[in-house]
């Protein structure tokens, strides 16, 4: 699914990722943990092609295609989805128009016919229901005036409608109360399949109680310094990250 080799990336000429290797197989769920400033969010942004984030060395392939030479929207068409830690507010653009434009673009790339408005509305309402978001949010500006939890659920709702192949969840659990966390986790679990993979970027092992990862990685200093199974997350919870810096 995803193969990253020796990825180096910098933001404003400051090197953040320094030789990151990661391979995620189809249907797998990987968790990436690590201290603040280790490059966790940068990884997602680099893969999504955010302006200002430049790759200085290495490669990243999604489904065998070189991700880094594609435009941002082409990466989305291929099946990449980044759920933002801080989703962007876009007043004046309705959530509904935005979602229809997204879904149409992705379906077109897959050579699927565009959904008629009735079918699309039905799917959008169902997705809202699945993430416990009032359907009235479809008519509001994209993320405009949404609370932190509502924004996260809006991200998840988009993900359901777009049915991507690789989902990168950037601290989707931050700022959520335990009930909202449960809703989000249920949504992600419901989307798990043999053809869809997840990268969960998180500070806390709490999320991993709800979504059991296949692999857990520790990102520190721009590289993955340790990998393991779910037990590694529990160990980190107990011991913190400091002991790993010695390992690195």
């Amino acid at each position, binding site marked *: 699914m995803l193969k990253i080799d020796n990825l180096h990336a910098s933001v404003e000429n400051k090197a953040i990722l320094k030789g990151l290797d990661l391979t995620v197989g189809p249907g797998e769920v990987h968790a990436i943990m690590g201290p603040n400033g280790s490059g966790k969010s940068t990884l997602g942004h680099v893969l999504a092609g955010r302006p200002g984030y430049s790759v200085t060395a290495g490669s990243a392939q999604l489904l065998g295609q070189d991700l880094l030479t594609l435009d941002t*929207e082409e990466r989305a068409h291929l099946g990449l989805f980044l759920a933002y830690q801080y989703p962007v507010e876009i007043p004046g653009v309705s959530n509904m128009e935005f979602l229809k434009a997204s879904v149409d673009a992705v379906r077109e790339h897959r050579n699927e016919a565009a959904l008629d408005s009735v079918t699309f509305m039905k799917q959008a309402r169902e997705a809202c229901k699945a993430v416990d978001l009032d359907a009235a949010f479809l008519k509001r500006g994209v993320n405009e005036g949404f609370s932190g939890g509502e924004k996260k659920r809006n991200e998840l709702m988009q993900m359901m409608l777009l049915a991507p192949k690789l989902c990168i969840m950037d601290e989707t659990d931050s700022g959520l109360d335990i009930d909202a966390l449960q809703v989000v986790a249920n949504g992600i679990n419901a989307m798990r399949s043999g053809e869809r993979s997840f990268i969960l970027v998180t500070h806390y092992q709490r999320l991993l109680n709800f979504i059991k990862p296949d692999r857990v990685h520790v990102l520190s200093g721009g590289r993955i310094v340790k990998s393991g199974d779910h037990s590694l997350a529990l160990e980190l919870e107990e011991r913190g990250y400091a002991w790993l810096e010695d390992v690195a």
Partner: protein
Amino acid sequence: MSDFMQQALAAAARTAPAWLEPVQARGRDAWSKTALPTRKTEAWKYTSLQPLQQTFSAPATESARSPLDDIPLPALDGPTLVFADGHYRAELSHGELPAGLNLVRFADANSEQAARIAAALGSALQPGRHVFAPLNDATLADGVFLEVAANAHIDTPVHIAWLTTGQNESISITQRLLVCLAENSSATLVESFANTATGGTAFTNGITELLLARGAQLNHYRLHLEQGDAVHIGGVHARQEADSLLNGFHLALGSALKRIDLVVDHQGSGAHCALDGLYLPRGTETVDYHTCIEHAVPHCTSQERFRGIIADEATAVFNGRIHIHPQAQKTRAELSNKNLLTSNKAEINTKPELEIYADDVQCAHGATVAQLDPLALHYLRTRGVPREEAEVMLSYGFINELVEAIAQPAVQAFLKPLLARRFARDARLTRHIL
């Protein structure tokens, strides 16, 4: 004085009804003492009158019956008056007058109506607030008088369309509308200004006066759809008595030059005005809005929201003056002006201008100038929306709030596609907005 003005003055004197002669004489006198503003005149600092330095002729006495089919106008079901190249076109005008509404052309006014018009005409114009008003008076040959009787509520919108066609060489046109709403009456008025795609240059000198008596309510739309070489120097001058309400929506697509002055004079306690406006110049076009709210008495409110998108090498000016007189305590005035520049060569000159002489008032103002938000653009693209479409969505999104706030459904339905297509001719790029 340039040739066109001389010719226009002569033409007007020939065709006007006799009772307008004193108005014309007054105008001629004042105009002869008027110096045309230059870039050194503060209110004209950013707008050049260069487009007026060409030969305009007075419109022919009888306008040719040119087809007007290619001029897009809102489809409204109320009474409609159409003027083309300065002349009333009966065959294009239609609609029954509901009870309580009087709609009379100056040229058709009987002596009793003429007396009422003459008494009210010019009363909303404050001396010195409209440089071209004397020329409008001097060349005034026809106009429209809209009157609503006390306590009458006119639900259907009155539509007055002022069109210019490519039929004539460069012409100058005088537009005048006098609106009198009697006590506790209400009405909706749509003014459209448009030209044919092949329109020759026209200079329109337009003035609309709105007189709102106690408790009157007016929803006013003034849509400047003229494009190309059109030059429009005009204004709306409103006088509001106690507890009256004026809701204004103003739109200016760009053309060679548009200068619109909006002046609201709060003369009675409890008056409120809300002005929304959009301006969208592109190419080398210029749009200049000057607004001025005179808070002369206590307990009045005003709210202005103007947004502009300036493209290519176009220029826009927004000057929002709020004048709170010493006795106008408990005034609440808000002014917001937001601008989006979509090119490095686009220019906006925005200036809130507050003069506050009362101490117990609430006054808020803000002006912003920005480019398309790169992060918002990126966010849309991460969801698969192609860059070109995302740019159109964000541009339209910048003005969408004011479009959605348009209360008259037919006006909104007319403007939505027209505005969205300003940002992209390719229907694929606007399909998710419309």
